[in-house]
């Protein structure tokens, strides 16, 4: 069935996605190769692979974006295929071309399709040609033209990078005063993130939902879709909570979205896994959806689709790359939710956080999956995206998936780097989420001013701090428990340390 040999897979990525890809490749009997930057030498994806190569220093531009070093690593290790994961080089046509040129299989779409879809301006044209509705906008960021467009359509307007995705190089402009600054900042961010500073401008929908369709295409012209994902809950235009199916989405709208995604894929002869993103607007007239973009890669939130459809999308990608023919998708089952645990301070505008993981407790149980690269001792630096892990729960219905998510979030504890786990817990517990009142403005509408005052919790935190200072809680006490093998609770009790309530002194 496979038309070409694929035995050794190099994963050109890091973090949870590199680990997740390696796990599937291993289960398919492939030999796996990790690449890593200097600070990632001790990282979990390096441990999981059969072989690993250092490809450069911390800066992504010199390591995970270093095409020459990655292809050299593939040559050295005899890799016959490269999986780019998401982010980094995953949507860079020049990388896909360079891989092809080296006679290595690129596990992803062809460079040409990637280029066409990766350029938002070109993708917009494509969508229009394929009869897929698009948001009103102009394909330039020339200040005067942008001003004119805004005057016509009215503020707010959205400034977007032509390249890349993931919300980088994106700015909402509320009033004319901020326009020039936004164009400049977006362009600078886009240049830094994707090496392409072009931006363009479109109408900003007031309260849309973000709904996307997973699709797969093979070399034999087959295109299948695997349902939709609602990714409306975002901060800074980046998703933090995703679920599938999209609650309350009309059957007719869903069918139309799946059909639109199929047309988009067919229009470029798409191969491998991709996602068509749409904005859903609701008014008296009913549901209307608009083309947003196509992400020509595996999506961060792909696991919620895997769990519903009982498939392994990375395995499908590898089979497609081998030249195999796609099977019909399974029948979806139940409801799945994903929460992204990021290294950010949700109480400070989601400011990126760094640190080393001193203590770690991860959730488990029925319907719970935690894709993460974290271990005790992990260093979270400022060099890369702050995604620490993805907590995914599944249930027979949305309420069971939601309840399991709540329980799983309550089992998480990560000390040493500030994460969004506590914030996400309150999001999932909120009435608005329970009622599935979803829109891309969810966070500002329902979570502004988080965290709300909670006296009992503050008291618990302060008592915990006092106990920790006294060596009566955490690693200290844990180590005592561990260094002692007698197992008598009295021996293990750290409370003796509390006698005299020694105060904490700075080293």
């Amino acid at each position, binding site marked *: 069935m496979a038309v070409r040999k694929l035995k050794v897979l190099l994963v050109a990525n890091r973090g949870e996605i590199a680990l997740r890809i390696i796990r599937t490749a291993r289960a398919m009997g492939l030999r796996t190769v990790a690449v890593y930057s200097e600070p990632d030498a001790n990282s979990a994806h390096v441990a999981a692979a059969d072989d690993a190569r250092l490809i450069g220093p911390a800066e992504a531009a010199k390591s995970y974006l270093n095409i020459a070093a990655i292809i050299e690593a593939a040559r050295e290790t005899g890799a016959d295929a490269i999986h780019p994961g998401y982010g980094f080089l995953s949507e860079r046509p020049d990388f896909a071309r360079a891989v092809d040129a080296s006679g290595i299989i690129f596990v992803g779409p062809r460079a040409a399709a990637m280029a066409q879809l990766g350029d938002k301006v070109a993708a917009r044209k494509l969508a229009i040609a394929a009869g897929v509705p698009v948001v009103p906008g102009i394909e330039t960021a020339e200040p005067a033209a942008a001003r004119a467009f805004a005057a016509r359509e009215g503020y707010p307007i959205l400034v977007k990078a032509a390249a890349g995705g993931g919300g980088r190089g994106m700015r909402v402009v509320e009033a004319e005063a901020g326009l020039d600054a936004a164009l400049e900042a977006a362009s600078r961010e886009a240049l830094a993130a994707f090496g392409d500073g072009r931006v363009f401008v479109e109408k900003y929908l007031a309260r849309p939902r973000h709904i996307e369709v997973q699709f797969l295409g093979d070399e034999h012209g087959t295109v299948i879709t695997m349902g939709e994902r609602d990714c409306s809950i975002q901060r800074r235009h980046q998703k933090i909570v995703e679920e599938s199916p999209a609650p309350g989405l009309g059957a007719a709208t869903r069918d139309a979205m799946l059909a639109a995604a199929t047309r988009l894929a067919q229009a470029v002869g798409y191969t491998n896994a991709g996602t068509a993103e749409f904005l859903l607007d609701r008014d008296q007239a009913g549901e209307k959806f608009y083309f947003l973009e196509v992400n020509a890669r595996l999506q961060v939130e792909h696991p919620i689709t895997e769990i519903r459809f009982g498939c392994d999308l990375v395995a499908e990608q590898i089979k497609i790359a081998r030249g195999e023919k796609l099977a019909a998708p399974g029948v979806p089952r139940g409801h799945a939710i994903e929460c992204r645990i990021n290294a950010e301070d949700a109480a400070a505008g989601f*400011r990126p956080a760094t640190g080393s993981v*001193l203590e770690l407790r991860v959730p488990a149980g029925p319907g719970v999956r935690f894709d993460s690269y974290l271990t005790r001792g992990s260093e979270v630096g400022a060099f890369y995206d702050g995604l620490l892990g993805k907590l995914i729960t599944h249930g027979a219905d949305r309420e069971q998936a939601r309840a399991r998510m709540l329980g799983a979030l309550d089992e998480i504890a990560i000390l040493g780097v500030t994460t969004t786990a506590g914030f996400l817990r309150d999001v999932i517990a909120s009435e608005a989420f329970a009622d599935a009142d979803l829109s891309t403005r969810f966070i500002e509408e329902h979570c502004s001013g988080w965290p709300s005052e909670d006296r009992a919790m503050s008291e618990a*935190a302060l008592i915990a*701090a*006092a106990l920790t200072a006294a060596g009566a809680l*955490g690693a200290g006490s844990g180590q005592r*428990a561990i260094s002692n093998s007698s197992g008598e609770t009295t021996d293990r009790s750290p409370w003796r340390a509390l006698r005299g309530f020694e105060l904490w002194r*700075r080293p």
Partner: protein
Amino acid sequence: MKLKSGAREYEVEIVSRDGRTLRARVDGREVSATIEELGDASAILSIGERRFRLLGARRKDAILVAVGPRTFDFVPAESGARRARGGLAASEVTAPMPGKVLKVLVKDGDRVSAGQPLVVIEAMKMETALAAESDAMIKRVRVAPGDNIDHGAVLVELSPVPDSSANQSERGAR
């Protein structure tokens, strides 16, 4: 002990522990709770009907605790950010995380007002503007665009606004 989290100060003492019963004084309030130690070095603290899973760790610069999925960083109050002087929330603007300086929006001698952005840095591919916490004079700018900065690096030194000593003392009193 006096602890500081962000701008807020707290005082906490463990008054007594008898078996599972724990009594503490938090900001002058008496709090009684029950505590169960767990084998994994965490503990369950019950206050009234609420039940919290606690975990703690010490780092040279802070005490970190987890209450369920929420985490809190504390520093001893006396070792926290420098006391406000002459109405300054802080006498320096420091880097909240490692990264790179993108833009410097002020120069030595400028007068700035609370909330005014001073420096734009980039970390994890996101731009973050660092603003003045209070009205101040720019004493010295210590970085330039392109500089790589570590966590805690001093970016800008501030001094009080000369002709506002009156309401400074007020502020000091608040």
